[in-house]
């Protein structure tokens, strides 16, 4: 007698639910169904922010002719490399890398006058730096007045951006951060690395946990929608490993912790909040189907092919017309090169 298997909970699951068929048997570039897309992406005014990996997303969105918002463009007399060095064109505003959810939350609050950081200007020699985006003016400024004025003008653009955008693409990068003991302001980079000086009396280390990150992101989404009710949010997690950890753990262990928390938060926010989406760039780069081939020799940064593959998956499920997609070539991405303050941790030992 020949009998069919009795039904079980996996019997009617789609092919993408099964590792052997959907992952093991597929080349990473052929994997399908990773992302269900963002409905109505075409025509959306898109803004980006986040850690260094998010810079690639913005470049590709621009290259595909999507209405990408750049509210603080660089002057045309700067070359592309010079613009990037001065923090232009990396994200939709010139906020530099926003590595943590807390940074994003406090940027929003500062832009809408809900908080004012007390220790926001750092020095190095006789030069002044915006402590909340110290990498965007590499030479620094000659006065604190200039930093304060430029920050006020920057915040005005950030306000306009949050008010105008339709889709906010945010890449979660880190859980580790350095915090002011004065008012809990979180910085993108430890004091002393680019500017400022490390004083344990003034600064402390924090490694945000799941609840912290979830609450910060939830706060941000709610606050964003309070001023822009139709705003949607697309979350990604950076596959770029930590350059260094301030925990006692091995940097590999610290990286896994950090990325695990961020990945879990991103997934839960997408599950909990309508209009919040998760795009699995992290899985595309770090998952076993990629066999680590998308990492540069430093095993940390992502190579051109990895970025291109991520974006191929992004566009393949977003209804962006092929002819529109093909109209412009992929932007030139310097191999393994993003403007990343955190990477300087490796250079300052």
């Amino acid at each position, binding site marked *: 007698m020949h009998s069919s298997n009795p039904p079980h909970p996996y019997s009617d699951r789609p092919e993408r639910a099964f590792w052997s068929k959907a992952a093991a048997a597929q080349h990473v570039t052929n994997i399908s169904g990773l992302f269900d897309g963002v409905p109505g992406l075409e025509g959306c005014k898109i803004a980006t922010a986040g850690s260094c990996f998010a810079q690639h997303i913005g470049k590709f969105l621009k290259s595909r002719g999507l209405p990408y918002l750049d509210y*603080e*463009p660089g*002057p*045309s*007399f*700067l070359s592309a490399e*010079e613009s990037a060095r*001065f923090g232009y064109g990396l994200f939709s505003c010139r906020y530099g890398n926003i590595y943590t959810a807390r940074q994003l939350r406090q940027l929003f609050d500062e832009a809408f006058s809900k908080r004012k950081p007390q220790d926001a200007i750092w020095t190095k020699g006789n030069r002044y730096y915006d402590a909340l985006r110290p990498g965007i*003016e*590499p*030479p*620094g*400024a*000659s006065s604190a007045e*200039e930093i304060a*004025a*430029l920050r006020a*003008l920057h915040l005005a653009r950030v306000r306009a951006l949050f008010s105008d955008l339709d889709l906010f693409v945010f890449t979660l990068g880190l859980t580790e951060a350095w915090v002011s003991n004065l008012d809990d302001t979180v910085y993108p980079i430890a004091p002393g690395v680019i500017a400022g000086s490390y004083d344990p009396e003034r600064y402390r280390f924090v490694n945000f946990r799941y609840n912290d990150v979830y609450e910060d992101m939830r706060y941000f989404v709610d606050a964003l929608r309070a001023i822009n009710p139709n705003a949607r949010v697309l979350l990604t997690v950076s596959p770029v490993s930590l350059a260094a950890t301030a925990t006692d753990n091995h940097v590999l262990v610290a990286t896994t912790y950090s990325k695990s928390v961020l990945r879990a938060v991103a997934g839960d926010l997408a599950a909990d909040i309508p209009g919040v989406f998760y795009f699995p760039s992290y899985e595309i780069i770090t998952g076993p189907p990629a066999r680590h081939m998308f990492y540069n020799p430093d095993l940390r940064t992502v190579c051109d092919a990895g970025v291109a593959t991520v974006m191929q998956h992004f566009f393949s499920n977003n209804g962006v017309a092929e002819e529109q997609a093909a109209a412009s070539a992929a932007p030139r991405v310097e191999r393994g090169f993003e403007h990343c303050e955190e990477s300087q941790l490796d250079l300052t030992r």
Partner: protein
Amino acid sequence: MRMLHVFGDSHVSPLHRGKQALNEAMARAGIDADFYVRQAPNWRNVRINQIGKGLRLRAVCTWEQPLNYTINQPDDIYVFSGPLHTAGLWRELAWREFCPWRVSEKFPAHHPVSDAVIEHMAEQHAGKTLEILKEVKDRGYMILVAEPPKPLKKGPAVDAIEPGVVVAVDQVYRRYIGGRLNAMGIPIIPIPDFTHEDGLTPDLYSDARPDDTHHGSTIFGTVMMKQIVQLTMGITLD
């Protein structure tokens, strides 16, 4: 006869005309001057070689005319025009939409630009020239830099850029390069205060050609040649 060698970018031409207007006075004072002018881009990347006891300056890339200039008179005075020439930056059309942060309140529709960005561009324009000037100085020659006129009053309108933006860009650029020259110990021969008003050069001291945005008139050249002679030799020309 004491000798001045005036060389550099197109701002040398008004100085040359000014000298011609002063020929008799300079001859009475026992001063002569020669002039060598090449367009600004030639001076931005110059190679310097020792030739006998002198130095030969040649442009790495030539623009319009070859640049081949020899410095070999250690007892003479060399006056260079070039690194304080700001028009290459303030004429950029981006300034229709951008402004130095210091004037951003006056131009709220413009994107603010930090001093560091302007200083970076000034360094891009003049950095290699400054290296050459330092090498000339370090070889024992007396070299000074002549300041060109401020942007002409008619200049901003030619490029449809706000005058207040042009003046602010010019100020940051001159201050930065001035500081670099000062740090290298190379004196600047400044333009007299009466040759500019509110950061711009009035018509009297401006080249009369309607589309010229930044060169001085013969009167300006005459004023500057008097200034050069006064500051380098302590002689007041009548």
